[in-house]
């Protein structure tokens, strides 16, 4: 009797397994990210899975400093990878190497054209390689000049308009007892170490490369050359405090010991977070000092791998996922903006009441719009990330006076032009 019952139970279980074949047909996408706010990422993924039965998403994360290496290894080792966080600086190399596919391989062009209309110019430029769109924005932002309003007001210093103004203000604050008025993210391993420098040079109206993509920043009249000289002078005058990461700068500025910094915009949300920061409300964004007040705009984006694009079923699933994360009505982008203060590449969000209300608490939206309007995209080439890895340590050397500005700019320009020649050939 017992054996018969067991057989019946086994038969029922087998029938049940046969009756539910959908689980076996599920597609599991491998989604690779850097580990910023993983809880929000996982929650967004859960919402996507609930809305798209049959598609599962497995999230793999790496730290930001290790992200580029880890992705390179994944690509080289053919580790299954479907959708990734991409970056404007890595796109040309990864696309040229055939690791990433343009979105028109997985999505209808008409849908992409509709989405493109809403994306800010610098963000669109960052996600485009050889005329093809390779991603949709995870977030897009500018690198901004941030300052402590109270410190400047107490010292009777107006908001600096040029880098000479910043130097004069810093010297005045130092004379008044502030040891290091300027706190700077000084970490040559991070790609944004170079990006922050470019943003400052853009403020002066600098163009680092000519129309043929030859380096021109080694000319002493170039704004980039002048800005590196400015930084070296500021370090020499002991006006600058170095910090290895933006996450350390936020609490440091909240000690009231520093007046200025140059950081990604979203740090302003953290600086002015009343729940965690004692000086919240004292920090503001100013247009990047310099003649043009321009800055570097950039975009991080969702991209699809070539292997996935070549598999119709996975390609379809990947497009559904990317469209959910970055497509209309921009629910996920809005969530990042409202909850975390991440910038966005989708222009309609600038007039979204929820975004305006949330951002109004920590940033002056008028100044932000003005800064976003003058933001310029960087020059990203196949050899750009290789060159950046070479140039960043040189930049770091010049800042702290280990090498002359002239030598560093000459070496940097020579290496750029060598790589350019190699890749063009």
């Amino acid at each position, binding site marked *: 009797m017992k054996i018969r019952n067991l057989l019946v139970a086994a038969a029922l279980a087998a029938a049940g397994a046969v009756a539910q074949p959908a689980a076996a047909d599920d597609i599991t996408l491998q989604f690779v990210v850097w580990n910023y706010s993983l809880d929000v990422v996982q929650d967004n993924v859960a919402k996507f899975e609930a809305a798209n039965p049959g598609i599962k998403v497995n999230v793999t994360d790496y730290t930001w400093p290790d992200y580029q*290496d880890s992705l*390179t290894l994944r690509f080289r080792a053919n580790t299954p990878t479907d959708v990734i966080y991409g970056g404007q600086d890595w796109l040309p190399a990864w696309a040229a190497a055939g690791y990433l596919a343009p979105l028109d391989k997985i999505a209808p062009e008409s849908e992409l054209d509709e989405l493109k209309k809403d994306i800010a110019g610098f963000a669109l430029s960052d996600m485009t390689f050889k005329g093809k769109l390779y991603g949709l924005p995870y977030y897009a932002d500018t690198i901004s000049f941030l300052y402590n309003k109270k410190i400047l007001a107490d010292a009777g210093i107006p908001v600096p308009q040029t880098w000479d103004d910043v130097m004069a203000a810093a010297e005045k604050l130092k004379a008044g007892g502030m040891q290091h008025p300027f706190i700077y993210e000084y970490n040559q391993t*991070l790609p944004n170490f170079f990006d922050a420098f470019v943003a400052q040079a853009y403020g002066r109206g600098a163009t680092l490369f000519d129309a043929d993509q030859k380096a021109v920043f080694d000319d002493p009249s170039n704004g980039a050359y002048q800005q590196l000289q400015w930084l070296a002078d500021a370090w020499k005058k002991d006006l600058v*405090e170095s*910090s290895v990461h933006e996450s*350390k700068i936020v609490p440091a500025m909240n000690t009231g010991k520093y007046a200025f910094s140059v950081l990604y915009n979203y740090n302003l949300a953290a600086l002015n977070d009343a729940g965690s920061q004692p000086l919240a409300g004292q920090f503001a964004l100013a247009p990047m000092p310099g003649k043009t007040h321009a800055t570097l705009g950039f975009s991080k984006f969702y991209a699809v791998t070539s292997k996935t694009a070549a598999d119709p079923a996975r390609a379809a699933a990947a497009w559904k996922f990317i469209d959910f994360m970055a497509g209309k009505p921009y629910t996920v982008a809005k969530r990042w903006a409202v909850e975390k203060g991440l910038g966005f590449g989708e222009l309609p969000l600038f007039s979204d009441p929820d975004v305006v209300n949330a951002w109004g608490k920590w940033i002056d939206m008028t100044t932000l719009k003005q800064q976003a309007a003058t933001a310029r995209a960087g020059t990203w080439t196949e050899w750009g990330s290789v060159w950046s890895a*070479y140039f960043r340590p040189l930049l770091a*050397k010049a800042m*702290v006076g280990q090498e002359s500005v002239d030598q560093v700019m000459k070496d940097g320009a020579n290496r750029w032009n060598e790589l350019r020649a190699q890749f063009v050939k």
Partner: protein
Amino acid sequence: MPASPAPICSGWIANSMWTANRYPGLWLLPALLPVALLTIYPVASALWTSLHQVMLLLPGEPFVGFQNYQRVLTSDYFTAALVNSLLFTLVSAPSVVVLGVLIALFLKRRFFGSQVVRSVVLLPWVLPGAISAVLWMWVFNPAFGILDWALRGLHLIRDPIPWLSSPQLAPVAVIVAHVWTQIPFAVVLTMTALAAINAETLEAAAIDCRSSFKRFRYVVLPEIRSMVVVLLVYNALIAFTSYDLVYAMTGGGPGTATTLLSFEIWNESFSMYDFGAGSAVAFIVVAVSAALIIAITRALPSDLFASE
């Protein structure tokens, strides 16, 4: 009755074709295969890569002979990285051994709480390099770091010291952190060597000589010197190939102030996407490491391990 007892494995086994003497290679296979798989293959693959142009962004992997080596040896960073690595090794390896021996001698004594102190001394051993780096970055932080706070408290400094962003101080900071992570292993091995010394020898030495330094110099040190040498060689290799701690603390900077050769392997391979050049640096590191070991062992008395 035979003159001597028969060996245990006499008979079929001794006479069979499966004797260890007859087919030593076959018997060694289970040990050799993993070694071949995990060591020889990767090394051979790296050697192959170092002789080819394996650049992620360029098509094909043509044979280029020693071009990668030539490019690496003449690059802007190589001399700085080599000098930094040698200095890092020459300072940190002896420091670890000297401090390890001193701490081991101290911990060998019994005192109130000695067991707790022994456990605490071993703590850095269980921390991964990256965690140790984070810890030391906070110690050296000019705004919040305990070191600057203590120095200010003692009125030794007025302004914060930029430990990790000054080209002069950053090497000192990373050496201090590295030595801290390596001391526990040196302490454990030295304590093992100390425990092996004959207690009667130490008692006799205590009666004959009142100077503890002389007892250490003439009785203890000769007994543990082979362990000290092993520690020195081991720490020289560890320091010369050190990567994670320095990478996490300074990223090789500022500029090239803390750039080590091992860091350049990563830099060439993953930042520059040039795996051929990265492999060439790796082989140069192997060659210099081998030269270091030979130099250290040649500098030692030839009878060092003779009595053991």
